[in-house]
Protein backbone atom coordinates (compact mmCIF):
# COMPACT_ATOMS: atom_id res chain seq x y z
CA UNK A 1 0.00 0.00 0.00
CA UNK A 2 2.81 2.33 0.96
CA UNK A 3 6.30 1.71 -0.32
CA UNK A 4 9.27 3.86 0.56
CA UNK A 5 12.49 3.22 -1.33
CA UNK A 6 15.92 4.81 -1.15
CA UNK A 7 14.60 7.68 0.93
CA UNK A 8 17.05 10.36 1.97
CA UNK A 9 16.47 13.58 3.88
CA UNK A 10 19.06 16.18 4.83
CA UNK A 11 18.70 19.25 7.01
CA UNK A 12 21.45 21.65 6.03
CA UNK A 13 24.49 19.27 5.73
CA UNK A 14 22.97 16.93 8.31
CA UNK A 15 21.67 13.62 7.02
CA UNK A 16 18.53 12.71 8.92
CA UNK A 17 17.60 9.70 6.80
CA UNK A 18 19.89 7.62 4.63
CA UNK A 19 18.69 5.32 1.87
CA UNK A 20 15.71 4.13 3.85
CA UNK A 21 13.47 1.40 2.49
CA UNK A 22 10.24 0.36 4.11
CA UNK A 23 6.91 -1.12 3.24
CA UNK A 24 3.46 -1.07 4.78
CA UNK A 25 0.91 -3.51 3.39
CA UNK A 26 -2.84 -3.03 3.18
CA UNK A 27 -4.38 -3.43 6.65
CA UNK A 28 -1.01 -3.91 8.22
CA UNK A 29 0.14 -2.34 11.49
CA UNK A 30 3.79 -1.39 11.23
CA UNK A 31 5.77 0.07 14.11
CA UNK A 32 9.01 1.93 13.78
CA UNK A 33 11.04 2.32 16.95
CA UNK A 34 14.30 3.98 17.70
CA UNK A 35 15.96 6.49 19.99
CA UNK A 36 15.54 10.22 19.87
CA UNK A 37 17.03 11.71 16.73
CA UNK A 38 16.95 8.47 14.77
CA UNK A 39 14.84 10.09 12.06
CA UNK A 40 11.42 8.69 12.93
CA UNK A 41 9.55 11.99 12.72
CA UNK A 42 11.47 12.93 9.59
CA UNK A 43 10.30 9.73 7.90
CA UNK A 44 6.65 10.52 8.58
CA UNK A 45 7.13 14.10 7.42
CA UNK A 46 8.74 12.90 4.21
CA UNK A 47 5.76 10.62 3.57
CA UNK A 48 3.31 13.45 4.30
CA UNK A 49 5.22 15.95 2.22
CA UNK A 50 6.42 18.40 4.87
CA UNK A 51 10.09 17.37 4.68
CA UNK A 52 11.88 17.52 1.34
CA UNK A 53 13.17 14.07 0.46
CA UNK A 54 15.02 12.20 -2.26
CA UNK A 55 14.04 8.68 -3.26
CA UNK A 56 10.55 7.40 -3.97
CA UNK A 57 7.36 7.14 -1.96
CA UNK A 58 4.63 5.18 -3.68
CA UNK A 59 1.13 5.05 -2.26
CA UNK A 60 -1.39 2.76 -3.92
CA UNK A 61 0.68 2.66 -7.07
CA UNK A 62 1.00 6.43 -7.21
CA UNK A 63 4.29 8.29 -6.81
CA UNK A 64 3.78 11.00 -4.21
CA UNK A 65 6.95 12.87 -5.13
CA UNK A 66 5.34 15.75 -6.98
CA UNK A 67 2.36 16.19 -4.62
CA UNK A 68 2.10 18.84 -1.94
CA UNK A 69 1.28 17.88 1.65
CA UNK A 70 -2.37 18.91 1.32
CA UNK A 71 -2.75 16.81 -1.82
CA UNK A 72 -1.28 13.76 -0.11
CA UNK A 73 -3.67 14.24 2.82
CA UNK A 74 -6.53 14.48 0.33
CA UNK A 75 -5.64 10.97 -0.90
CA UNK A 76 -6.43 9.52 2.52
CA UNK A 77 -3.11 9.67 4.36
CA UNK A 78 -3.85 11.04 7.84
CA UNK A 79 -0.88 12.28 9.82
CA UNK A 80 -1.24 12.70 13.58
CA UNK A 81 1.88 14.75 14.18
CA UNK A 82 4.40 14.76 16.98
CA UNK A 83 3.41 17.15 19.74
CA UNK A 84 -0.29 16.73 18.79
CA UNK A 85 -0.50 20.06 16.97
CA UNK A 86 -4.20 20.65 17.56
CA UNK A 87 -5.44 24.07 16.42
CA UNK A 88 -5.31 25.90 19.76
CA UNK A 89 -7.66 28.80 18.97
CA UNK A 90 -10.34 26.56 17.45
CA UNK A 91 -12.87 24.66 19.52
CA UNK A 92 -12.68 20.91 19.99
CA UNK A 93 -15.53 20.39 17.53
CA UNK A 94 -14.01 22.70 14.95
CA UNK A 95 -10.77 20.75 15.20
CA UNK A 96 -12.63 17.49 14.65
CA UNK A 97 -14.66 18.83 11.74
CA UNK A 98 -11.52 20.06 10.01
CA UNK A 99 -10.25 16.49 10.18
CA UNK A 100 -12.81 15.70 7.49
CA UNK A 101 -11.99 18.76 5.40
CA UNK A 102 -10.80 16.58 2.54
CA UNK A 103 -13.50 16.20 -0.06
CA UNK A 104 -13.76 12.43 0.15
CA UNK A 105 -14.42 12.60 3.90
CA UNK A 106 -17.11 15.28 3.99
CA UNK A 107 -20.07 13.05 3.29
CA UNK A 108 -19.18 10.69 6.10
CA UNK A 109 -18.50 13.50 8.56
CA UNK A 110 -21.52 13.07 10.86
CA UNK A 111 -20.98 9.31 11.09
CA UNK A 112 -17.25 9.70 11.71
CA UNK A 113 -17.95 12.26 14.43
CA UNK A 114 -20.22 9.84 16.26
CA UNK A 115 -17.56 7.14 16.10
CA UNK A 116 -14.82 9.45 17.36
CA UNK A 117 -17.00 10.66 20.24
CA UNK A 118 -17.73 7.08 21.12
CA UNK A 119 -13.99 6.36 21.27
CA UNK A 120 -13.27 9.53 23.26
CA UNK A 121 -16.38 10.54 25.24
CA UNK A 122 -14.41 13.29 27.00
CA UNK A 123 -14.27 15.22 23.72
CA UNK A 124 -18.04 15.55 23.73
CA UNK A 125 -17.91 17.23 27.13
CA UNK A 126 -15.17 19.53 25.91
CA UNK A 127 -16.73 20.25 22.51
CA UNK A 128 -17.04 24.03 22.83
CA UNK A 129 -13.76 24.51 24.65
CA UNK A 130 -10.74 25.90 22.82
CA UNK A 131 -8.38 23.06 21.97
CA UNK A 132 -5.48 25.01 23.46
CA UNK A 133 -7.08 24.78 26.89
CA UNK A 134 -7.16 20.97 26.95
CA UNK A 135 -4.75 18.84 28.95
CA UNK A 136 -1.99 17.01 27.10
CA UNK A 137 -3.85 13.71 27.17
CA UNK A 138 -7.06 15.30 25.91
CA UNK A 139 -5.13 17.03 23.14
CA UNK A 140 -3.68 13.70 22.09
CA UNK A 141 -7.17 12.21 21.95
CA UNK A 142 -8.30 15.20 19.92
CA UNK A 143 -5.36 14.86 17.52
CA UNK A 144 -6.11 11.17 17.10
CA UNK A 145 -9.82 11.90 16.70
CA UNK A 146 -9.06 14.57 14.10
CA UNK A 147 -6.99 12.02 12.19
CA UNK A 148 -9.85 9.51 12.26
CA UNK A 149 -12.32 12.16 11.07
CA UNK A 150 -10.46 12.06 7.75
CA UNK A 151 -11.69 8.46 7.40
CA UNK A 152 -8.20 7.69 6.19
CA UNK A 153 -6.80 4.66 4.47
CA UNK A 154 -3.46 5.06 6.23
CA UNK A 155 -2.90 6.52 9.66
CA UNK A 156 0.56 7.90 10.46
CA UNK A 157 1.03 8.22 14.22
CA UNK A 158 4.00 10.16 15.52
CA UNK A 159 4.83 9.45 19.18
CA UNK A 160 1.31 9.53 20.58
CA UNK A 161 2.71 8.77 24.06
CA UNK A 162 5.03 11.74 24.19
CA UNK A 163 4.85 13.76 27.38
CA UNK A 164 1.87 11.89 28.80
CA UNK A 165 1.37 10.13 32.12
CA UNK A 166 1.41 6.30 32.23
CA UNK A 167 -2.35 5.89 32.61
CA UNK A 168 -3.14 8.09 29.64
CA UNK A 169 -0.46 6.36 27.58
CA UNK A 170 -2.04 3.02 28.33
CA UNK A 171 -5.45 4.36 27.33
CA UNK A 172 -4.10 5.82 24.08
CA UNK A 173 -2.38 2.56 23.12
CA UNK A 174 -5.52 0.60 23.94
CA UNK A 175 -7.55 2.90 21.73
CA UNK A 176 -5.08 2.56 18.87
CA UNK A 177 -5.31 -1.21 19.21
CA UNK A 178 -9.10 -1.00 19.22
CA UNK A 179 -9.20 1.24 16.13
CA UNK A 180 -6.99 -1.20 14.38
CA UNK A 181 -9.02 -4.28 15.30
CA UNK A 182 -12.38 -2.70 14.53
CA UNK A 183 -11.48 -1.02 11.27
CA UNK A 184 -8.55 -2.92 9.88
CA UNK A 185 -6.97 0.43 9.28
CA UNK A 186 -3.44 0.53 7.89
CA UNK A 187 -1.23 2.10 10.55
CA UNK A 188 2.37 3.27 10.65
CA UNK A 189 3.30 4.05 14.25
CA UNK A 190 6.50 5.72 15.32
CA UNK A 191 7.46 5.44 18.99
CA UNK A 192 10.18 5.67 21.57
CA UNK A 193 8.30 3.33 23.91
CA UNK A 194 9.67 0.25 22.28
CA UNK A 195 7.87 -2.59 24.05
CA UNK A 196 4.34 -1.19 24.07
CA UNK A 197 4.64 -0.03 20.48
CA UNK A 198 6.08 -3.30 19.17
CA UNK A 199 3.46 -5.34 20.99
CA UNK A 200 0.75 -3.58 18.99
CA UNK A 201 2.23 -4.23 15.57
CA UNK A 202 2.36 -6.96 12.98
CA UNK A 203 5.80 -6.00 11.82
CA UNK A 204 8.41 -3.55 12.99
CA UNK A 205 11.58 -1.69 12.10
CA UNK A 206 14.32 -0.41 14.34
CA UNK A 207 15.80 2.87 13.20
CA UNK A 208 19.13 4.29 14.35
CA UNK A 209 20.82 7.45 13.08
CA UNK A 210 18.73 7.54 9.93
CA UNK A 211 19.14 3.89 8.96
CA UNK A 212 17.08 0.76 9.44
CA UNK A 213 19.21 -1.53 11.59
CA UNK A 214 16.68 -4.26 12.21
CA UNK A 215 13.39 -5.36 10.70
CA UNK A 216 11.04 -8.24 11.26
CA UNK A 217 7.78 -9.60 12.60
CA UNK A 218 6.64 -8.56 16.07
CA UNK A 219 7.64 -11.63 18.03
CA UNK A 220 10.98 -11.97 16.31
CA UNK A 221 11.81 -8.36 17.09
CA UNK A 222 10.69 -8.56 20.69
CA UNK A 223 12.81 -11.67 21.14
CA UNK A 224 15.84 -10.31 19.31
CA UNK A 225 18.80 -10.04 21.68
CA UNK A 226 19.83 -6.68 20.21
CA UNK A 227 16.40 -5.20 20.92
CA UNK A 228 16.44 -6.76 24.35
CA UNK A 229 19.86 -5.37 25.13
CA UNK A 230 19.32 -1.90 23.76
CA UNK A 231 15.76 -1.19 24.74
CA UNK A 232 14.44 -3.66 27.21
CA UNK A 233 17.34 -3.50 29.59
CA UNK A 234 17.76 -7.29 29.58
Amino acid sequence: MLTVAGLGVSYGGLRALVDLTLEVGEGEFVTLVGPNGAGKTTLLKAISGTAAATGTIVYRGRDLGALRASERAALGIAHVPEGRRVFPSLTVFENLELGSYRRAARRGRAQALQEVLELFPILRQRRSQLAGSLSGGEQQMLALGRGLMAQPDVLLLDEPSQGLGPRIVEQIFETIDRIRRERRLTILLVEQRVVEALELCDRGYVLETGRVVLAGARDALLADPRVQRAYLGA
Partner: protein
Amino acid sequence: MVFAELVQYVVTGLLVGGVYALMSIGLGLIFGVMRVVNFAQGDFMMLGMYVTYFYAVAGSIDPLVGALLAVPPFFVLGWIVHRLLLARVTGGDPGRQHDAQLILTLGLSLVITNATTMILTPTPRGIRTSYATQAFAVGPVLLNQARSYAFVMALVLAGLVYLFLTRTDLGRALRAAADDPEAASYQAIDVRTMHGLAFGVGIALVAAAGGLLATYYPIEPNVAGNFIVLMFVAVVLGGLGSIPGAFVGGILIGLVQSLTLLVLPFQLQNTGVFVAFLLVLYLRPQGLFGRRARTV
Protein backbone atom coordinates in the same frame (compact mmCIF):
# COMPACT_ATOMS: atom_id res chain seq x y z
CA MET B 1 -24.61 69.81 29.61
CA VAL B 2 -21.07 68.58 30.13
CA PHE B 3 -22.45 65.07 30.24
CA ALA B 4 -24.25 65.50 26.91
CA GLU B 5 -21.01 66.74 25.38
CA LEU B 6 -19.20 63.66 26.65
CA VAL B 7 -21.87 61.37 25.20
CA GLN B 8 -21.58 63.22 21.90
CA TYR B 9 -17.84 62.53 21.74
CA VAL B 10 -18.32 58.89 22.71
CA VAL B 11 -20.96 58.38 20.03
CA THR B 12 -18.88 60.09 17.37
CA GLY B 13 -15.92 57.94 18.39
CA LEU B 14 -17.93 54.74 18.16
CA LEU B 15 -19.23 55.67 14.71
CA VAL B 16 -15.79 56.24 13.20
CA GLY B 17 -14.48 53.29 15.21
CA GLY B 18 -16.76 50.95 13.29
CA VAL B 19 -15.05 51.82 10.02
CA TYR B 20 -11.61 51.57 11.66
CA ALA B 21 -12.64 48.15 12.95
CA LEU B 22 -13.50 46.95 9.46
CA MET B 23 -10.17 48.07 7.99
CA SER B 24 -8.27 46.61 10.94
CA ILE B 25 -9.92 43.22 10.52
CA GLY B 26 -8.52 43.14 6.99
CA LEU B 27 -5.00 43.87 8.21
CA GLY B 28 -5.38 41.45 11.13
CA LEU B 29 -6.60 38.64 8.89
CA ILE B 30 -3.64 39.02 6.55
CA PHE B 31 -1.19 39.09 9.42
CA GLY B 32 -2.90 36.25 11.26
CA VAL B 33 -2.91 33.84 8.35
CA MET B 34 0.20 34.88 6.41
CA ARG B 35 2.37 36.50 9.12
CA VAL B 36 2.87 39.29 6.60
CA VAL B 37 2.78 42.91 7.74
CA ASN B 38 1.04 44.60 4.85
CA PHE B 39 2.25 48.18 4.61
CA ALA B 40 0.19 48.65 1.45
CA GLN B 41 -3.08 48.10 3.33
CA GLY B 42 -3.76 51.86 3.52
CA ASP B 43 -3.16 52.21 -0.20
CA PHE B 44 -5.71 49.54 -1.02
CA MET B 45 -8.08 51.49 1.21
CA MET B 46 -7.32 54.60 -0.84
CA LEU B 47 -8.00 52.68 -4.07
CA GLY B 48 -11.29 51.54 -2.55
CA MET B 49 -12.18 55.17 -1.95
CA TYR B 50 -11.43 56.06 -5.58
CA VAL B 51 -13.35 53.10 -6.97
CA THR B 52 -16.34 54.11 -4.86
CA TYR B 53 -15.88 57.68 -6.09
CA PHE B 54 -15.90 56.62 -9.73
CA TYR B 55 -18.90 54.36 -9.14
CA ALA B 56 -20.65 57.47 -7.79
CA VAL B 57 -19.50 59.87 -10.52
CA ALA B 58 -19.79 57.60 -13.54
CA GLY B 59 -22.61 55.33 -12.45
CA SER B 60 -24.48 57.50 -9.94
CA ILE B 61 -24.08 54.70 -7.45
CA ASP B 62 -24.50 55.69 -3.83
CA PRO B 63 -21.16 55.26 -2.02
CA LEU B 64 -22.74 53.00 0.58
CA VAL B 65 -23.63 50.61 -2.23
CA GLY B 66 -20.37 51.40 -4.02
CA ALA B 67 -18.43 50.26 -0.98
CA LEU B 68 -20.11 46.85 -1.24
CA LEU B 69 -19.53 46.73 -4.99
CA ALA B 70 -15.83 47.30 -4.31
CA VAL B 71 -15.62 43.93 -2.55
CA PRO B 72 -15.54 41.54 -5.55
CA PRO B 73 -12.97 43.40 -7.70
CA PHE B 74 -10.69 43.98 -4.73
CA PHE B 75 -10.93 40.36 -3.68
CA VAL B 76 -9.73 39.41 -7.14
CA LEU B 77 -7.03 42.09 -7.03
CA GLY B 78 -5.81 40.80 -3.67
CA TRP B 79 -5.78 37.23 -4.95
CA ILE B 80 -3.73 38.27 -8.00
CA VAL B 81 -1.28 40.38 -5.98
CA HIS B 82 -0.76 37.39 -3.72
CA ARG B 83 -0.23 34.99 -6.60
CA LEU B 84 2.12 37.21 -8.56
CA LEU B 85 4.09 38.87 -5.77
CA LEU B 86 3.54 37.73 -2.21
CA ALA B 87 3.53 34.01 -2.93
CA ARG B 88 7.19 34.39 -3.91
CA VAL B 89 8.19 35.53 -0.45
CA THR B 90 5.81 33.55 1.77
CA GLY B 91 5.35 29.93 2.70
CA GLY B 92 8.96 29.08 3.29
CA ASP B 93 11.09 29.64 6.37
CA PRO B 94 9.37 32.68 7.92
CA GLY B 95 12.48 33.99 9.64
CA ARG B 96 14.37 34.33 6.39
CA GLN B 97 11.58 35.93 4.40
CA HIS B 98 10.49 38.79 6.65
CA ASP B 99 12.86 41.28 5.06
CA ALA B 100 11.63 40.48 1.58
CA GLN B 101 8.01 40.74 2.70
CA LEU B 102 8.52 44.13 4.35
CA ILE B 103 10.29 45.56 1.32
CA LEU B 104 7.68 44.12 -1.01
CA THR B 105 4.64 45.57 0.75
CA LEU B 106 6.41 48.87 1.42
CA GLY B 107 7.36 49.07 -2.26
CA LEU B 108 3.84 48.19 -3.29
CA SER B 109 2.59 51.04 -1.12
CA LEU B 110 4.96 53.54 -2.77
CA VAL B 111 4.06 52.37 -6.26
CA ILE B 112 0.32 52.57 -5.62
CA THR B 113 0.48 56.02 -4.00
CA ASN B 114 2.67 57.49 -6.73
CA ALA B 115 0.89 55.86 -9.63
CA THR B 116 -2.42 57.16 -8.28
CA THR B 117 -0.96 60.65 -7.88
CA MET B 118 0.33 60.55 -11.47
CA ILE B 119 -2.85 59.27 -13.01
CA LEU B 120 -5.51 60.93 -10.88
CA THR B 121 -3.62 64.05 -9.72
CA PRO B 122 -3.19 64.95 -6.05
CA THR B 123 -6.35 67.09 -6.02
CA PRO B 124 -8.66 65.97 -3.22
CA ARG B 125 -12.10 64.82 -4.29
CA GLY B 126 -15.28 64.19 -2.44
CA ILE B 127 -18.55 62.40 -3.00
CA ARG B 128 -21.62 64.53 -2.49
CA THR B 129 -24.47 62.75 -0.83
CA SER B 130 -27.70 64.07 0.60
CA TYR B 131 -26.92 62.59 3.99
CA ALA B 132 -23.31 63.71 4.47
CA THR B 133 -24.34 66.95 6.13
CA GLN B 134 -27.47 65.65 7.87
CA ALA B 135 -27.70 64.30 11.35
CA PHE B 136 -30.04 62.15 13.39
CA ALA B 137 -30.90 63.92 16.63
CA VAL B 138 -31.20 61.68 19.66
CA GLY B 139 -32.05 64.04 22.48
CA PRO B 140 -29.19 66.52 22.61
CA VAL B 141 -26.82 64.13 20.80
CA LEU B 142 -26.32 64.41 17.04
CA LEU B 143 -25.41 61.43 14.90
CA ASN B 144 -24.01 62.38 11.52
CA GLN B 145 -26.00 60.38 8.99
CA ALA B 146 -23.13 59.44 6.70
CA ARG B 147 -21.12 58.15 9.66
CA SER B 148 -24.12 56.32 11.05
CA TYR B 149 -24.80 54.50 7.80
CA ALA B 150 -21.11 53.74 7.37
CA PHE B 151 -21.00 52.39 10.92
CA VAL B 152 -23.95 50.07 10.37
CA MET B 153 -22.54 48.80 7.07
CA ALA B 154 -19.14 48.21 8.68
CA LEU B 155 -20.75 46.19 11.45
CA VAL B 156 -22.74 44.14 8.96
CA LEU B 157 -19.62 43.36 6.90
CA ALA B 158 -17.63 42.52 10.02
CA GLY B 159 -20.47 40.25 11.12
CA LEU B 160 -20.43 38.47 7.77
CA VAL B 161 -16.69 37.93 8.08
CA TYR B 162 -17.23 36.52 11.54
CA LEU B 163 -19.86 34.10 10.28
CA PHE B 164 -17.61 33.08 7.41
CA LEU B 165 -14.71 32.37 9.76
CA THR B 166 -16.71 30.43 12.33
CA ARG B 167 -19.49 28.71 10.39
CA THR B 168 -18.01 27.60 7.09
CA ASP B 169 -15.45 24.90 6.36
CA LEU B 170 -13.40 27.36 4.34
CA GLY B 171 -13.40 29.95 7.12
CA ARG B 172 -12.39 27.38 9.71
CA ALA B 173 -9.66 26.12 7.42
CA LEU B 174 -8.41 29.70 7.18
CA ARG B 175 -8.21 29.94 10.98
CA ALA B 176 -6.55 26.54 11.16
CA ALA B 177 -3.92 27.69 8.66
CA ALA B 178 -3.35 30.74 10.85
CA ASP B 179 -2.95 28.59 13.98
CA ASP B 180 -0.61 25.97 12.54
CA PRO B 181 0.10 25.80 8.80
CA GLU B 182 1.88 22.45 8.97
CA ALA B 183 -0.91 20.76 10.91
CA ALA B 184 -3.40 22.37 8.51
CA SER B 185 -1.68 20.78 5.54
CA TYR B 186 -2.16 17.37 7.24
CA GLN B 187 -5.92 18.05 7.08
CA ALA B 188 -5.71 18.49 3.29
CA ILE B 189 -5.86 22.28 3.68
CA ASP B 190 -3.75 23.92 0.99
CA VAL B 191 -1.92 26.67 2.83
CA ARG B 192 -1.06 28.61 -0.33
CA THR B 193 -4.73 28.80 -1.27
CA MET B 194 -5.51 29.98 2.27
CA HIS B 195 -2.93 32.76 1.90
CA GLY B 196 -4.54 33.91 -1.33
CA LEU B 197 -7.95 33.81 0.30
CA ALA B 198 -6.77 35.76 3.35
CA PHE B 199 -5.08 38.40 1.22
CA GLY B 200 -8.09 38.70 -1.10
CA VAL B 201 -10.54 39.03 1.79
CA GLY B 202 -8.22 41.37 3.70
CA ILE B 203 -7.87 43.69 0.71
CA ALA B 204 -11.60 43.54 -0.08
CA LEU B 205 -12.47 44.52 3.49
CA VAL B 206 -10.13 47.48 3.62
CA ALA B 207 -11.36 48.66 0.21
CA ALA B 208 -14.96 48.45 1.42
CA ALA B 209 -13.98 50.36 4.55
CA GLY B 210 -12.40 52.96 2.27
CA GLY B 211 -15.65 53.22 0.32
CA LEU B 212 -17.59 53.79 3.54
CA LEU B 213 -15.03 56.34 4.69
CA ALA B 214 -15.46 58.16 1.39
CA THR B 215 -19.00 59.13 2.40
CA TYR B 216 -17.53 61.68 4.83
CA TYR B 217 -13.77 61.90 4.22
CA PRO B 218 -11.94 63.60 1.35
CA ILE B 219 -10.31 61.28 -1.21
CA GLU B 220 -6.68 61.87 -2.20
CA PRO B 221 -3.71 59.67 -3.14
CA ASN B 222 -1.90 60.36 0.15
CA VAL B 223 -4.78 59.46 2.41
CA ALA B 224 -3.25 56.07 3.31
CA GLY B 225 -0.74 57.48 5.76
CA ASN B 226 -3.44 58.85 8.05
CA PHE B 227 -5.00 55.43 8.43
CA ILE B 228 -2.34 52.75 8.14
CA VAL B 229 -0.91 53.77 11.51
CA LEU B 230 -4.34 53.60 13.12
CA MET B 231 -4.86 50.14 11.64
CA PHE B 232 -1.53 48.89 12.97
CA VAL B 233 -2.26 50.28 16.41
CA ALA B 234 -5.72 48.68 16.39
CA VAL B 235 -4.35 45.28 15.37
CA VAL B 236 -1.55 45.32 17.95
CA LEU B 237 -3.90 46.67 20.60
CA GLY B 238 -6.34 43.84 20.01
CA GLY B 239 -3.62 41.20 19.97
CA LEU B 240 -1.70 40.33 16.80
CA GLY B 241 -3.50 37.69 14.80
CA SER B 242 -6.81 37.95 16.66
CA ILE B 243 -9.75 38.99 14.47
CA PRO B 244 -12.12 39.90 17.34
CA GLY B 245 -9.14 41.74 18.81
CA ALA B 246 -8.66 43.77 15.63
CA PHE B 247 -12.34 44.64 15.66
CA VAL B 248 -12.36 45.82 19.27
CA GLY B 249 -9.03 47.56 18.69
CA GLY B 250 -10.55 49.53 15.80
CA ILE B 251 -13.56 50.62 17.86
CA LEU B 252 -11.28 51.66 20.73
CA ILE B 253 -9.09 53.72 18.41
CA GLY B 254 -12.15 55.63 17.23
CA LEU B 255 -13.24 56.22 20.81
CA VAL B 256 -9.86 57.34 22.07
CA GLN B 257 -9.32 59.55 19.03
CA SER B 258 -12.64 61.25 19.60
CA LEU B 259 -12.26 61.63 23.36
CA THR B 260 -8.80 63.14 22.88
CA LEU B 261 -10.53 66.10 21.26
CA LEU B 262 -12.06 66.92 24.65
CA VAL B 263 -8.65 67.94 25.92
CA LEU B 264 -6.43 68.46 22.85
CA PRO B 265 -6.84 70.37 19.58
CA PHE B 266 -7.85 68.54 16.40
CA GLN B 267 -4.31 68.36 14.99
CA LEU B 268 -3.27 66.30 18.00
CA GLN B 269 -6.16 63.86 17.95
CA ASN B 270 -3.87 60.85 17.44
CA THR B 271 -1.80 61.69 20.51
CA GLY B 272 -4.38 60.06 22.74
CA VAL B 273 -4.32 56.97 20.51
CA PHE B 274 -0.59 56.53 20.96
CA VAL B 275 -0.72 57.15 24.70
CA ALA B 276 -3.41 54.48 25.04
CA PHE B 277 -1.34 52.21 22.79
CA LEU B 278 1.77 52.57 24.94
CA LEU B 279 -0.25 51.96 28.09
CA VAL B 280 -1.71 48.74 26.70
CA LEU B 281 1.68 47.54 25.51
CA TYR B 282 3.11 48.27 28.95
CA LEU B 283 0.33 46.62 30.94
CA ARG B 284 -0.63 43.80 28.54
CA PRO B 285 2.02 43.33 25.88
CA GLN B 286 0.21 40.49 24.12
CA GLY B 287 -2.67 42.86 23.34
CA LEU B 288 -6.21 42.71 24.66
CA PHE B 289 -7.15 39.44 22.98
CA GLY B 290 -3.70 37.98 22.38
CA ARG B 291 -2.60 34.67 23.71
CA ARG B 292 0.33 34.86 26.06
CA ALA B 293 2.03 31.89 24.48
CA ARG B 294 1.29 29.34 21.81
CA THR B 295 0.49 25.83 22.86
CA VAL B 296 2.89 23.27 21.55
